[in-house]
């Protein structure tokens, strides 16, 4: 059995305007065509994927209409509650694919919506967020997550988004270990997985843009957590947050504390390797991943040293 691997993807991507070389035409037997004649002739809408569509949900499940509604609802939270301030936004490419990497925090992470909202409103580009597939198991939340631009963190998805569709992709290499940190461990970055994000950026030939976020940790700090109780409920952990203590079990689950957000975009990192290789040096991947982690960690320390107040920045 042979199947086309990645090497084939580039020519396959342009399926519709795929042009065969002279040699291929010579070696491919010309189809007799008789067998197909009784079937209807080509239809005008045969290749237009948007024909007959009623909604605008794209292949990833994201909907610009839903996103627009969400942006309008979220904007006051972004501007008035978190009072988000960006530095170095110009470092995010205005076109072409890029992998955005950030630190991850708060019991229910508040950083992903803030970063996505900020980039979409400031740069007018969609951002897809790669995340754990746990979201897809939750009714309503899973669907909303997907409509907002959430995509399962599968290497194939990242490759297609970055390499073939030249999109901005946001991911948090700490994974669930980031938000699971308790208040005492705040701003101490966890291991960056096994460096999968570096490998994806190498394969897709896109830069990694590190982003350091200050404020998310204090928006919903975890006082105590239980991994086993969480697992029983199908969650990665069950947190008890400061919000719960202050606002009660219901409001405390959904309401963030008004921590001041400062977000600093660092210089993009380009890996000097050819894209689309079958494999990349494992040691190089681990080293680069650790390098990115260290840069974000160092920047966080600088930003925290400058911060006078958790609430006013």
């Amino acid at each position, binding site marked *: 059995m042979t199947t086309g691997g990645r090497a084939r993807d580039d020519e396959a991507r342009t399926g519709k305007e795929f042009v065969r070389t002279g040699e291929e035409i010579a070696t491919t037997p010309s189809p007799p065509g*008789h067998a197909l004649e009784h079937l*209807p002739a080509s239809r005008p809408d045969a290749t237009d*994927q948007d024909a007959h569509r009623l909604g605008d949900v794209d292949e990833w499940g994201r909907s610009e209409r839903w996103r627009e509604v969400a942006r309008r609802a979220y904007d006051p939270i972004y501007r008035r509650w978190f009072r988000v301030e960006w530095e170095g936004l110009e470092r995010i490419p205005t076109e072409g694919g890029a992998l955005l990497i950030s630190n991850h925090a708060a019991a229910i992470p508040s950083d992903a919506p803030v970063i996505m909202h900020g980039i979409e409103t400031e740069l007018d580009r969609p951002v897809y967020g790669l995340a754990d597939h746990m979201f897809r198991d939750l009714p309503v939340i899973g669907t909303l997550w997907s409509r907002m631009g959430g995509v399962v963190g599968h290497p194939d998805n990242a490759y297609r988004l970055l390499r073939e569709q030249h999109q901005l992709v946001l991911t948090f290499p700490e994974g669930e270990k980031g938000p699971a940190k308790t208040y005492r461990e705040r701003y101490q970055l966890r291991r960056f997985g096994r460096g999968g994000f570096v490998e994806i950026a190498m394969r897709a030939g896109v830069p990694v843009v590190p982003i350091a976020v200050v404020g998310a940790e204090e928006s919903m700090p975890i006082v105590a957590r239980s991994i086993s109780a969480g697992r029983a409920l199908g969650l990665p952990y069950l947190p008890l947050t400061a919000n719960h203590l202050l606002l009660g079990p219901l409001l405390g689950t959904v309401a963030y504390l008004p921590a001041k957000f400062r977000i600093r975009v660092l210089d993009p990192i380009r890996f000097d390797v050819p894209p689309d290789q079958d494999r990349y040096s494992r040691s190089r991947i681990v080293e680069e991943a650790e390098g990115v982690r260290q840069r974000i960690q160092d920047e966080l320390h600088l930003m925290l040293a400058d911060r006078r107040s958790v609430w006013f920045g």
Partner: protein
Amino acid sequence: MSGDPYRPRRVLVTGIGTYWGSRVARALEADPEVEVIVGLGVDPPEVELERTEYVRADASYSILARLIDATRIDTVVHTHLVVDASQMPARAVHEINVIGTMNLLAAVSAPDSAVRNLVVKSSTIVYGCSSGDPTWFREDTPPTRPPTTRIQRSLTEVEGYVRDFVVDNPHVNLTLLRFCKVLGEGLETPLTRALRLPLVPHLAGFDPRFQFVHSDDVVRAMLFALERHLSGVYNVAGDGVVPWSEVAAICGKRTVPLTPYGTALAARLMRPVGIDLPDEILELMRYGRGVDNRLLTAEGFEYRYTTAGAIDAFARALRLERTVGNARPVYRYQRDVETFFRHSPAVIRDPEPT
């Protein structure tokens, strides 16, 4: 093309009594270079066939080796794989899919077999369906989890046999086509039944992406594989994906929510009232599935329908049916009449279709 040893001339179609077997045979009849078409099946053909010879066989094809030997078949189109678990008991599905394919492959690889082409109609069900799936499955993407439904297990076993067959028989050109959910005229599946209900069921809180292929494109893809001598695995699915709620909306239907917890139990309770949603469909209604169809389009195949186009065609058929009812004539196979038309010297046949 007279010197082409792989040109299909004597073709055997399995499952002639099924939707796909009959339609593939009918399409093959239009090709004058195909001299002989033998249709093998438990049931007689579903559509009118002009020159296909119908051979009645049990589901596990015990007579196949003799048949292939006697007719010097050079091409086998294996359409008889069950992908809809609601049709029959698990035992029968196993018998048809796994045992049937095993016997078929054994007969095809017999020492004096003349078979050089084999097309197998599998399904994208083999990729499974779970929350950790990639958004698009490529032909070489492994399933995220081990098989969960009977149909998936059965088709996975079938593909295992096919894989072994390819290794053992390098002289046979084999194409394994994996089709996604099909919509088309006269085709009844659990999904089309669901879409015909006054209220279309959906899982509360879930609205996954569905991908469809039109039945015309299914038949065309199988013929395309034969004509171009494709070998290997190919996904066959319309371009694009459409959320289930939008599928219902294009069909002009409202939806009714099913419980997202204990869904299997709820589905079982609905079975007595005639709403049958097999496990495989329930999984799909939770997570959906998308497959990458670009390997086949890169070979030059052109789809006539996108996913949304196939849904629209189905919706049009629904609207027509609402007005005129199921008024189209239904074909009934009558052996004596068919034998007369095929073999009697009294019947004047067209010399050659042009």
